[in-house]
Protein backbone atom coordinates (compact mmCIF):
# COMPACT_ATOMS: atom_id res chain seq x y z
CA UNK A 1 0.00 0.00 0.00
CA UNK A 2 1.37 3.40 -0.92
CA UNK A 3 1.76 6.11 1.65
CA UNK A 4 -1.06 8.07 0.07
CA UNK A 5 -3.64 5.32 0.53
CA UNK A 6 -2.34 4.62 4.00
CA UNK A 7 -2.90 8.24 4.94
CA UNK A 8 -6.40 8.23 3.50
CA UNK A 9 -7.23 5.12 5.44
CA UNK A 10 -5.90 6.61 8.67
CA UNK A 11 -7.73 9.86 8.01
CA UNK A 12 -10.99 8.02 7.45
CA UNK A 13 -10.62 6.05 10.65
CA UNK A 14 -9.84 9.19 12.63
CA UNK A 15 -12.99 10.86 11.33
CA UNK A 16 -15.14 7.80 11.99
CA UNK A 17 -13.91 7.37 15.53
CA UNK A 18 -14.18 11.09 16.24
CA UNK A 19 -17.73 11.17 14.91
CA UNK A 20 -18.73 8.21 17.07
CA UNK A 21 -17.13 9.62 20.18
CA UNK A 22 -18.89 12.95 19.75
CA UNK A 23 -22.20 11.36 18.83
CA UNK A 24 -22.21 9.07 21.86
CA UNK A 25 -21.20 11.96 24.08
CA UNK A 26 -18.16 10.02 25.20
CA UNK A 27 -16.06 13.13 24.76
CA UNK A 28 -16.79 16.85 24.70
CA UNK A 29 -14.07 17.87 22.29
CA UNK A 30 -11.70 16.29 19.82
CA UNK A 31 -8.18 17.57 19.39
CA UNK A 32 -6.66 16.80 16.04
CA UNK A 33 -4.86 18.13 13.01
CA UNK A 34 -6.35 20.23 10.27
CA UNK A 35 -5.01 21.73 7.06
CA UNK A 36 -2.25 24.23 7.67
CA UNK A 37 -2.23 27.76 6.37
CA UNK A 38 1.00 27.28 4.46
CA UNK A 39 2.35 24.29 2.56
CA UNK A 40 4.38 21.72 4.54
CA UNK A 41 2.34 22.31 7.66
CA UNK A 42 -0.79 21.42 9.56
CA UNK A 43 -2.50 23.18 12.44
CA UNK A 44 -4.01 21.81 15.61
CA UNK A 45 -7.79 22.05 15.81
CA UNK A 46 -10.33 21.63 18.58
CA UNK A 47 -13.65 20.22 17.40
CA UNK A 48 -16.82 20.35 19.45
CA UNK A 49 -19.44 19.53 16.87
CA UNK A 50 -20.02 16.29 15.01
CA UNK A 51 -20.51 18.03 11.69
CA UNK A 52 -17.02 19.48 11.80
CA UNK A 53 -15.16 16.19 11.96
CA UNK A 54 -14.36 16.31 8.27
CA UNK A 55 -11.97 19.10 9.08
CA UNK A 56 -9.71 16.54 10.69
CA UNK A 57 -6.85 15.44 8.48
CA UNK A 58 -3.91 13.10 8.64
CA UNK A 59 -0.84 13.47 6.45
CA UNK A 60 2.90 13.44 6.79
CA UNK A 61 3.10 17.05 7.90
CA UNK A 62 1.42 16.50 11.26
CA UNK A 63 4.56 17.39 13.12
CA UNK A 64 2.95 19.06 16.15
CA UNK A 65 2.76 17.04 19.32
CA UNK A 66 -0.88 17.40 20.33
CA UNK A 67 -0.19 16.39 23.92
CA UNK A 68 0.78 20.04 24.36
CA UNK A 69 -2.85 21.07 23.98
CA UNK A 70 -4.44 19.32 26.91
CA UNK A 71 -6.00 20.58 30.10
CA UNK A 72 -4.96 21.92 32.54
CA UNK A 73 -2.59 23.82 30.29
CA UNK A 74 -5.44 24.78 27.97
CA UNK A 75 -7.91 26.72 30.14
CA UNK A 76 -10.49 26.40 27.36
CA UNK A 77 -10.66 22.71 28.12
CA UNK A 78 -11.75 23.24 31.70
CA UNK A 79 -15.42 23.88 32.30
CA UNK A 80 -16.10 26.05 35.36
CA UNK A 81 -18.86 23.70 36.48
CA UNK A 82 -18.02 20.28 35.11
CA UNK A 83 -14.30 20.52 35.65
CA UNK A 84 -12.02 19.15 32.99
CA UNK A 85 -13.73 18.37 29.73
CA UNK A 86 -13.49 14.91 28.27
CA UNK A 87 -11.14 15.00 25.34
CA UNK A 88 -10.51 12.72 22.40
CA UNK A 89 -7.07 13.23 20.98
CA UNK A 90 -5.63 12.08 17.68
CA UNK A 91 -2.60 10.15 18.79
CA UNK A 92 0.41 9.03 16.80
CA UNK A 93 3.09 7.03 18.60
CA UNK A 94 5.03 9.89 20.11
CA UNK A 95 1.90 11.77 21.18
CA UNK A 96 0.89 8.61 23.01
CA UNK A 97 4.26 8.48 24.72
CA UNK A 98 3.92 12.11 25.74
CA UNK A 99 0.45 11.47 27.18
CA UNK A 100 1.70 8.58 29.26
CA UNK A 101 4.74 10.48 30.43
CA UNK A 102 2.56 13.45 31.38
CA UNK A 103 0.25 11.11 33.28
CA UNK A 104 3.24 9.64 35.12
CA UNK A 105 4.26 13.15 36.07
CA UNK A 106 0.70 13.79 37.24
CA UNK A 107 0.14 16.61 34.79
CA UNK A 108 -2.94 15.17 33.12
CA UNK A 109 -5.65 12.77 34.09
CA UNK A 110 -5.85 10.00 31.51
CA UNK A 111 -9.41 9.19 32.62
CA UNK A 112 -10.51 12.33 30.84
CA UNK A 113 -8.60 11.51 27.69
CA UNK A 114 -9.65 9.15 24.94
CA UNK A 115 -6.69 8.14 22.85
CA UNK A 116 -7.55 7.81 19.17
CA UNK A 117 -4.56 5.70 18.22
CA UNK A 118 -3.19 5.73 14.69
CA UNK A 119 -0.16 4.04 13.18
CA UNK A 120 2.06 6.91 12.11
CA UNK A 121 4.01 6.49 8.92
CA UNK A 122 6.62 9.16 9.40
CA UNK A 123 6.74 12.94 9.40
CA UNK A 124 8.36 14.88 6.58
CA UNK A 125 11.47 16.82 7.52
CA UNK A 126 10.06 20.17 6.45
CA UNK A 127 13.13 22.20 7.36
CA UNK A 128 15.35 20.04 5.22
CA UNK A 129 13.03 20.34 2.25
CA UNK A 130 12.79 24.09 2.69
CA UNK A 131 16.56 24.28 2.77
CA UNK A 132 16.94 22.31 -0.44
CA UNK A 133 14.31 24.35 -2.25
CA UNK A 134 16.06 27.50 -1.14
CA UNK A 135 14.67 30.91 -1.95
CA UNK A 136 11.90 29.70 -4.24
CA UNK A 137 8.38 29.78 -2.91
CA UNK A 138 6.70 26.46 -2.23
CA UNK A 139 3.04 26.49 -3.22
CA UNK A 140 1.97 22.91 -2.92
CA UNK A 141 3.33 19.75 -1.41
CA UNK A 142 1.98 16.25 -1.68
CA UNK A 143 3.10 12.74 -1.02
CA UNK A 144 2.51 10.21 -3.73
CA UNK A 145 3.89 6.72 -4.12
CA UNK A 146 7.22 6.96 -2.38
CA UNK A 147 8.01 10.53 -3.20
CA UNK A 148 7.37 13.93 -1.77
CA UNK A 149 6.38 16.23 -4.61
CA UNK A 150 7.05 19.91 -4.07
CA UNK A 151 5.48 22.34 -6.51
CA UNK A 152 5.87 26.05 -6.95
CA UNK A 153 5.88 28.65 -9.67
CA UNK A 154 7.87 27.22 -12.59
CA UNK A 155 9.33 24.31 -10.70
CA UNK A 156 8.49 20.89 -9.47
CA UNK A 157 10.83 18.74 -7.47
CA UNK A 158 10.53 15.35 -5.95
CA UNK A 159 12.28 13.90 -2.92
CA UNK A 160 12.38 10.24 -1.85
CA UNK A 161 10.06 9.84 1.14
CA UNK A 162 12.13 7.43 3.18
CA UNK A 163 15.13 9.74 2.98
CA UNK A 164 13.34 13.02 3.68
CA UNK A 165 11.47 12.16 6.86
CA UNK A 166 12.69 13.30 10.27
CA UNK A 167 15.80 11.55 11.46
CA UNK A 168 13.88 10.56 14.58
CA UNK A 169 11.10 9.00 12.52
CA UNK A 170 13.70 6.89 10.74
CA UNK A 171 14.71 5.45 14.11
CA UNK A 172 11.21 5.33 15.58
CA UNK A 173 10.05 1.98 16.89
CA UNK A 174 6.85 3.15 18.54
CA UNK A 175 4.63 4.05 15.59
CA UNK A 176 1.26 3.64 17.25
CA UNK A 177 0.65 4.77 20.81
CA UNK A 178 1.36 2.37 23.68
CA UNK A 179 -1.79 0.76 24.97
CA UNK A 180 -3.59 2.24 27.94
CA UNK A 181 -7.15 1.72 29.12
CA UNK A 182 -8.66 4.65 27.30
CA UNK A 183 -7.38 3.58 23.91
CA UNK A 184 -9.68 3.55 20.93
CA UNK A 185 -8.32 2.95 17.48
CA UNK A 186 -4.99 1.30 16.92
CA UNK A 187 -2.67 0.99 19.90
CA UNK A 188 0.39 -1.18 20.30
CA UNK A 189 1.97 -3.09 23.15
CA UNK A 190 5.60 -2.46 23.92
CA UNK A 191 7.36 -4.16 26.77
CA UNK A 192 10.77 -2.88 26.03
CA UNK A 193 12.18 -1.30 22.94
CA UNK A 194 15.37 -2.59 21.45
CA UNK A 195 17.67 -0.03 19.93
CA UNK A 196 21.35 -0.16 19.17
CA UNK A 197 21.85 3.60 19.02
CA UNK A 198 24.44 3.25 16.30
CA UNK A 199 23.94 6.87 15.24
CA UNK A 200 24.77 8.12 18.75
CA UNK A 201 27.72 5.78 19.07
CA UNK A 202 29.11 6.89 15.75
CA UNK A 203 29.01 10.50 16.86
CA UNK A 204 30.55 9.66 20.20
CA UNK A 205 33.52 7.95 18.63
CA UNK A 206 34.71 11.38 17.49
CA UNK A 207 37.34 13.28 19.42
CA UNK A 208 36.25 16.01 21.85
CA UNK A 209 37.48 18.61 19.38
CA UNK A 210 35.36 17.24 16.58
CA UNK A 211 32.32 16.95 18.79
CA UNK A 212 32.78 20.47 20.07
CA UNK A 213 33.10 21.79 16.57
CA UNK A 214 30.07 19.90 15.34
CA UNK A 215 27.80 20.95 18.21
CA UNK A 216 28.95 24.54 17.99
CA UNK A 217 28.32 24.57 14.30
CA UNK A 218 24.90 22.98 14.72
CA UNK A 219 23.73 25.46 17.34
CA UNK A 220 25.53 28.59 16.24
CA UNK A 221 22.51 30.01 14.41
CA UNK A 222 20.14 29.55 17.36
CA UNK A 223 18.35 32.80 18.07
CA UNK A 224 17.05 31.68 21.48
CA UNK A 225 13.47 32.15 20.38
CA UNK A 226 12.45 29.13 22.50
CA UNK A 227 10.09 27.83 19.85
CA UNK A 228 11.55 24.40 20.58
CA UNK A 229 10.54 24.72 24.19
CA UNK A 230 7.08 25.98 23.33
CA UNK A 231 6.44 23.05 21.02
CA UNK A 232 7.72 20.52 23.51
CA UNK A 233 4.96 18.55 25.26
CA UNK A 234 7.22 17.94 28.25
CA UNK A 235 8.16 21.60 28.76
CA UNK A 236 5.32 22.73 30.95
CA UNK A 237 7.14 24.58 33.74
CA UNK A 238 5.43 27.72 34.92
CA UNK A 239 8.77 29.41 35.19
CA UNK A 240 11.33 28.02 32.80
CA UNK A 241 14.96 28.39 33.77
CA UNK A 242 15.59 30.67 30.82
CA UNK A 243 13.02 33.16 32.07
CA UNK A 244 14.31 33.09 35.57
CA UNK A 245 16.45 36.05 36.53
CA UNK A 246 17.17 35.46 40.18
CA UNK A 247 19.86 34.25 40.36
CA UNK A 248 21.24 34.91 36.91
CA UNK A 249 22.96 31.66 36.04
CA UNK A 250 23.52 32.68 32.49
CA UNK A 251 22.65 35.59 30.25
CA UNK A 252 19.95 35.97 27.66
CA UNK A 253 22.12 36.76 24.70
CA UNK A 254 23.07 34.66 21.71
CA UNK A 255 26.64 34.45 22.86
CA UNK A 256 27.93 31.01 21.94
CA UNK A 257 28.42 29.86 25.54
CA UNK A 258 24.95 30.95 26.47
CA UNK A 259 23.38 29.15 23.54
CA UNK A 260 25.22 26.01 24.57
CA UNK A 261 24.22 26.48 28.16
CA UNK A 262 20.56 26.75 27.16
CA UNK A 263 20.66 23.57 25.11
CA UNK A 264 22.72 21.66 27.63
CA UNK A 265 20.51 22.48 30.59
CA UNK A 266 17.39 21.88 28.57
CA UNK A 267 18.81 18.49 27.62
CA UNK A 268 19.34 17.80 31.33
CA UNK A 269 15.70 18.64 31.98
CA UNK A 270 14.59 16.36 29.19
CA UNK A 271 16.59 13.30 30.19
CA UNK A 272 14.27 10.39 30.80
CA UNK A 273 11.28 12.51 29.77
CA UNK A 274 11.85 13.39 26.13
CA UNK A 275 9.53 11.30 23.97
CA UNK A 276 11.44 11.80 20.73
CA UNK A 277 8.63 13.35 18.71
CA UNK A 278 10.88 15.77 16.86
CA UNK A 279 8.45 18.68 17.28
CA UNK A 280 11.30 20.94 18.44
CA UNK A 281 13.26 20.49 15.24
CA UNK A 282 10.16 20.89 13.09
CA UNK A 283 9.30 24.28 14.55
CA UNK A 284 12.79 25.78 14.76
CA UNK A 285 12.69 28.89 12.56
CA UNK A 286 16.35 28.60 11.66
CA UNK A 287 16.16 24.89 10.96
CA UNK A 288 18.35 23.54 13.74
CA UNK A 289 17.95 19.80 13.94
CA UNK A 290 18.03 18.80 17.58
CA UNK A 291 17.51 15.10 16.92
CA UNK A 292 21.09 14.18 17.80
CA UNK A 293 20.61 15.50 21.33
CA UNK A 294 17.24 13.79 21.56
CA UNK A 295 18.77 10.49 20.54
CA UNK A 296 21.52 10.91 23.09
CA UNK A 297 18.93 11.45 25.82
CA UNK A 298 17.12 8.28 24.84
CA UNK A 299 20.36 6.35 24.69
CA UNK A 300 21.56 7.50 28.11
CA UNK A 301 18.45 6.52 30.03
CA UNK A 302 18.05 3.30 28.09
CA UNK A 303 21.58 2.07 28.58
CA UNK A 304 22.03 3.27 32.11
CA UNK A 305 18.61 2.72 33.62
CA UNK A 306 16.86 0.54 31.05
CA UNK A 307 14.10 3.09 30.65
CA UNK A 308 12.19 4.22 27.60
CA UNK A 309 10.01 7.22 28.26
CA UNK A 310 6.26 6.96 27.84
CA UNK A 311 5.74 3.28 27.21
CA UNK A 312 4.90 2.02 30.66
CA UNK A 313 2.55 3.98 32.85
CA UNK A 314 3.60 2.10 35.98
CA UNK A 315 7.30 2.67 35.69
CA UNK A 316 8.93 5.36 37.77
CA UNK A 317 11.03 7.79 35.71
CA UNK A 318 14.78 7.29 36.26
CA UNK A 319 15.64 10.84 37.25
CA UNK A 320 13.15 10.76 40.11
CA UNK A 321 14.57 7.51 41.32
CA UNK A 322 17.88 5.96 42.36
CA UNK A 323 19.40 2.67 43.25
CA UNK A 324 22.28 1.80 45.48
CA UNK A 325 23.85 -0.23 42.69
CA UNK A 326 23.82 2.47 40.00
CA UNK A 327 26.87 2.53 37.78
CA UNK A 328 29.49 5.01 38.89
CA UNK A 329 32.29 4.32 36.45
CA UNK A 330 32.79 8.06 35.90
CA UNK A 331 33.79 8.68 39.51
CA UNK A 332 37.38 9.42 40.30
CA UNK A 333 39.10 6.63 42.21
CA UNK A 334 42.49 6.14 43.74
CA UNK A 335 44.81 4.08 41.55
Amino acid at each position, binding site marked *: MGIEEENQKIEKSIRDIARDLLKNKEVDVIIGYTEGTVPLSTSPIIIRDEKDVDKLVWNNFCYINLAKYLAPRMPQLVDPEKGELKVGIVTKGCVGRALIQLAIEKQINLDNVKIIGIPCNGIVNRRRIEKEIGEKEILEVSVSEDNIIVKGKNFEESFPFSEYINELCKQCKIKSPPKVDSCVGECGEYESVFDEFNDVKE*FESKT*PDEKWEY*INDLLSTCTRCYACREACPMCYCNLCFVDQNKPIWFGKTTDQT*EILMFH*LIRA*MHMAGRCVACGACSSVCPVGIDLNLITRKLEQMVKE*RYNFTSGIDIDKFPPMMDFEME*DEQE*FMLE*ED
Partner: protein
Amino acid sequence: MSKVVFETEDEEEVKVDKDWKPRILAFLCNWCSYAGADLAGVSRIQYPATVRVVRVPCTGRINPFFILKALTDGWDGVVVSGCHPGDCHYISGNLVARRRFALLNELLEFFGIEPGRVNFMWASAAEGERFAVLIEKATERVKKLGPNKRFLKKW
Protein backbone atom coordinates in the same frame (compact mmCIF):
# COMPACT_ATOMS: atom_id res chain seq x y z
CA MET B 1 42.48 35.50 39.46
CA SER B 2 45.62 35.55 37.44
CA LYS B 3 44.64 37.27 34.23
CA VAL B 4 47.87 36.31 32.53
CA VAL B 5 46.81 32.79 31.71
CA PHE B 6 43.41 33.86 30.61
CA GLU B 7 44.38 36.37 28.09
CA THR B 8 46.94 34.19 26.42
CA GLU B 9 45.48 33.51 23.01
CA ASP B 10 48.37 31.35 21.96
CA GLU B 11 47.83 27.83 23.24
CA GLU B 12 51.39 26.75 22.56
CA GLU B 13 52.67 29.33 24.92
CA VAL B 14 50.50 28.08 27.74
CA LYS B 15 51.60 24.52 27.29
CA VAL B 16 55.21 25.53 27.53
CA ASP B 17 54.44 27.39 30.71
CA LYS B 18 55.49 24.69 33.17
CA ASP B 19 54.42 26.70 36.16
CA TRP B 20 50.84 27.03 35.09
CA LYS B 21 48.53 25.80 37.78
CA PRO B 22 44.90 25.12 37.00
CA ARG B 23 42.43 26.91 39.20
CA ILE B 24 39.84 24.49 40.39
CA LEU B 25 36.54 25.03 42.09
CA ALA B 26 35.49 22.26 44.46
CA PHE B 27 31.96 21.70 45.68
CA LEU B 28 32.21 19.74 48.91
CA CYS B 29 29.35 18.43 50.97
CA ASN B 30 29.20 19.70 54.49
CA TRP B 31 29.10 16.34 56.25
CA CYS B 32 31.78 14.29 54.56
CA SER B 33 34.11 15.84 52.05
CA TYR B 34 34.33 19.25 53.67
CA ALA B 35 35.26 17.56 56.94
CA GLY B 36 37.61 15.32 54.95
CA ALA B 37 39.33 18.36 53.51
CA ASP B 38 39.55 19.74 57.00
CA LEU B 39 41.13 16.53 58.21
CA ALA B 40 43.65 16.64 55.40
CA GLY B 41 44.46 20.16 56.56
CA VAL B 42 44.91 19.41 60.24
CA SER B 43 46.87 16.25 59.43
CA ARG B 44 49.17 18.45 57.32
CA ILE B 45 48.68 16.41 54.19
CA GLN B 46 49.70 18.44 51.17
CA TYR B 47 47.31 18.95 48.30
CA PRO B 48 47.24 21.51 45.50
CA ALA B 49 46.71 24.97 46.86
CA THR B 50 44.90 26.20 43.76
CA VAL B 51 41.70 24.49 44.79
CA ARG B 52 38.99 26.72 46.17
CA VAL B 53 36.14 25.25 48.11
CA VAL B 54 32.43 25.94 48.09
CA ARG B 55 30.61 24.19 50.88
CA VAL B 56 27.18 22.81 50.04
CA PRO B 57 24.84 20.99 52.40
CA CYS B 58 24.76 17.87 50.25
CA THR B 59 25.78 16.79 46.75
CA GLY B 60 22.07 16.60 46.07
CA ARG B 61 22.03 20.38 46.39
CA ILE B 62 24.29 20.76 43.39
CA ASN B 63 22.44 22.08 40.41
CA PRO B 64 24.17 21.49 37.06
CA PHE B 65 24.21 25.28 36.84
CA PHE B 66 26.79 25.45 39.63
CA ILE B 67 29.20 23.45 37.53
CA LEU B 68 28.52 25.17 34.23
CA LYS B 69 28.63 28.60 35.79
CA ALA B 70 32.05 27.79 37.23
CA LEU B 71 33.25 26.96 33.73
CA THR B 72 31.72 30.00 32.04
CA ASP B 73 33.20 32.20 34.73
CA GLY B 74 36.65 30.93 33.95
CA TRP B 75 37.57 28.20 36.38
CA ASP B 76 39.81 25.66 34.70
CA GLY B 77 38.24 22.69 36.35
CA VAL B 78 35.53 21.61 38.73
CA VAL B 79 35.53 18.95 41.43
CA VAL B 80 32.40 17.66 43.09
CA SER B 81 32.80 15.55 46.18
CA GLY B 82 30.38 14.04 48.68
CA CYS B 83 29.73 11.19 51.05
CA HIS B 84 30.13 7.63 49.84
CA PRO B 85 26.90 6.02 48.59
CA GLY B 86 24.93 4.89 51.61
CA ASP B 87 26.60 7.39 53.96
CA CYS B 88 24.62 10.47 53.03
CA HIS B 89 23.58 12.58 55.97
CA TYR B 90 20.21 12.99 54.27
CA ILE B 91 20.11 9.28 53.44
CA SER B 92 19.77 9.42 49.67
CA GLY B 93 20.89 12.87 48.51
CA ASN B 94 24.08 11.58 46.97
CA LEU B 95 22.30 8.72 45.24
CA VAL B 96 19.93 11.09 43.49
CA ALA B 97 22.88 13.31 42.69
CA ARG B 98 24.84 10.40 41.28
CA ARG B 99 22.27 9.83 38.54
CA ARG B 100 22.26 13.52 37.76
CA PHE B 101 26.06 13.65 37.59
CA ALA B 102 26.20 10.55 35.43
CA LEU B 103 24.00 12.18 32.83
CA LEU B 104 25.62 15.60 33.14
CA ASN B 105 29.01 14.05 32.69
CA GLU B 106 27.90 12.20 29.57
CA LEU B 107 26.19 15.24 28.14
CA LEU B 108 29.23 17.41 28.72
CA GLU B 109 31.35 14.93 26.84
CA PHE B 110 28.72 14.72 24.15
CA PHE B 111 28.92 18.47 23.71
CA GLY B 112 32.67 18.18 23.38
CA ILE B 113 33.89 19.32 26.79
CA GLU B 114 37.14 17.47 27.44
CA PRO B 115 36.77 14.50 29.79
CA GLY B 116 38.51 15.45 33.02
CA ARG B 117 37.40 19.05 33.11
CA VAL B 118 34.67 18.18 35.56
CA ASN B 119 35.49 15.54 38.16
CA PHE B 120 33.28 13.68 40.58
CA MET B 121 34.47 11.80 43.64
CA TRP B 122 33.48 10.46 47.04
CA ALA B 123 35.48 11.15 50.20
CA SER B 124 34.29 10.65 53.74
CA ALA B 125 35.12 12.74 56.80
CA ALA B 126 37.72 10.18 57.86
CA GLU B 127 39.49 10.10 54.50
CA GLY B 128 41.79 13.09 54.57
CA GLU B 129 44.43 11.09 52.80
CA ARG B 130 42.10 9.94 50.04
CA PHE B 131 40.78 13.46 49.63
CA ALA B 132 44.26 14.81 49.05
CA VAL B 133 45.16 12.03 46.62
CA LEU B 134 42.01 12.49 44.56
CA ILE B 135 42.31 16.26 44.46
CA GLU B 136 45.87 15.80 43.29
CA LYS B 137 44.63 13.45 40.60
CA ALA B 138 41.89 15.82 39.48
CA THR B 139 44.39 18.66 39.32
CA GLU B 140 46.69 16.55 37.16
CA ARG B 141 43.84 15.77 34.79
CA VAL B 142 42.91 19.42 34.41
CA LYS B 143 46.54 20.40 34.08
CA LYS B 144 46.92 18.05 31.13
CA LEU B 145 43.99 19.69 29.42
CA GLY B 146 45.35 23.19 29.84
CA PRO B 147 43.30 26.31 30.53
CA ASN B 148 39.56 26.16 30.10
CA LYS B 149 38.72 27.63 26.70
CA ARG B 150 35.58 25.82 25.67
CA PHE B 151 32.89 26.96 28.02
CA LEU B 152 34.57 30.19 28.94
CA LYS B 153 32.34 33.17 28.38
CA LYS B 154 34.08 35.71 26.20
CA TRP B 155 32.86 39.06 27.30
